[in-house]
């Protein structure tokens, strides 16, 4: 039995389940669902990531995710949003973030989804540490871009 999404804006240590997000936003009024998954990338500019660690200020992060969702549902009428972000240790190809947006029309579903990830990268208090074979580093300077999903 699919118990569904616990809450539509969540920060969790558990592996993410994209279908729960997708099912949460799917409804008879919607004709389009877009889903974004940010996954842990192994190689960036010849540097190999072994794994990542994500940390969050959980209550504020969930609040900010919910604010982003509310803003989107207002900006793109008829849309519905779910965003889940994983924290803790993540391996290569693990899902770090999943964003699902439904909308009556597809253009809005793409636009709103991309808007969500852009906002997440700006305002949601979540941090990523890259662990390489020869060191590790908290990532925060957004102009510096190895690993995971990037601009």
């Amino acid at each position: 039995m699919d118990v569904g999404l616990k809450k539509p804006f969540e920060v969790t240590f558990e592996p993410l389940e994209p279908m729960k997000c997708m099912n949460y936003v799917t409804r008879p009024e919607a004709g389009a669902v877009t889903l974004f998954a940010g996954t842990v990338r192994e190689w960036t500019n010849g540097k190999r990531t072994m794994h990542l660690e994500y940390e969050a200020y959980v209550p504020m992060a969930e609040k900010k995710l919910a604010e982003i969702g509310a803003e989107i549902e207002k900006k793109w009428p008829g849309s519905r949003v779910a965003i889940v972000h994983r924290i803790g240790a993540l391996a290569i190809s693990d899902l770090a973030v999943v964003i699902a947006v439904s909308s009556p029309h597809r253009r809005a579903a793409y636009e709103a989804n991309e808007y969500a990830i852009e906002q997440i990268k700006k305002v949601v208090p979540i941090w990523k540490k890259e662990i390489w074979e020869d060191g590790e580093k908290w990532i925060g300077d957004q102009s510096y871009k190895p690993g995971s999903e990037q601009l």
Partner: protein
Amino acid sequence: MIYLHYFAGLKEAAGKPEESLPWTSGTAADVLQWAATTYSNFDFSAVQIAVNEEYVLETEPVKPGDHVAFIPPVSGG
């Protein structure tokens, strides 16, 4: 008393995720000043401040009981 929250590199520099600080009155800038002096091994130049889970300007008053979080540049997603 106010409650301070540290994350990522700052948590490692401070050696702890949170601590409390005696407090009567002041602004977010005062709290930042205290932290920057206490944890001088960390670069606070790009850090934002959140009071009670909301971003604030440095001029924001901080009252006893408030939770003050230092937010280094985020890198989620």
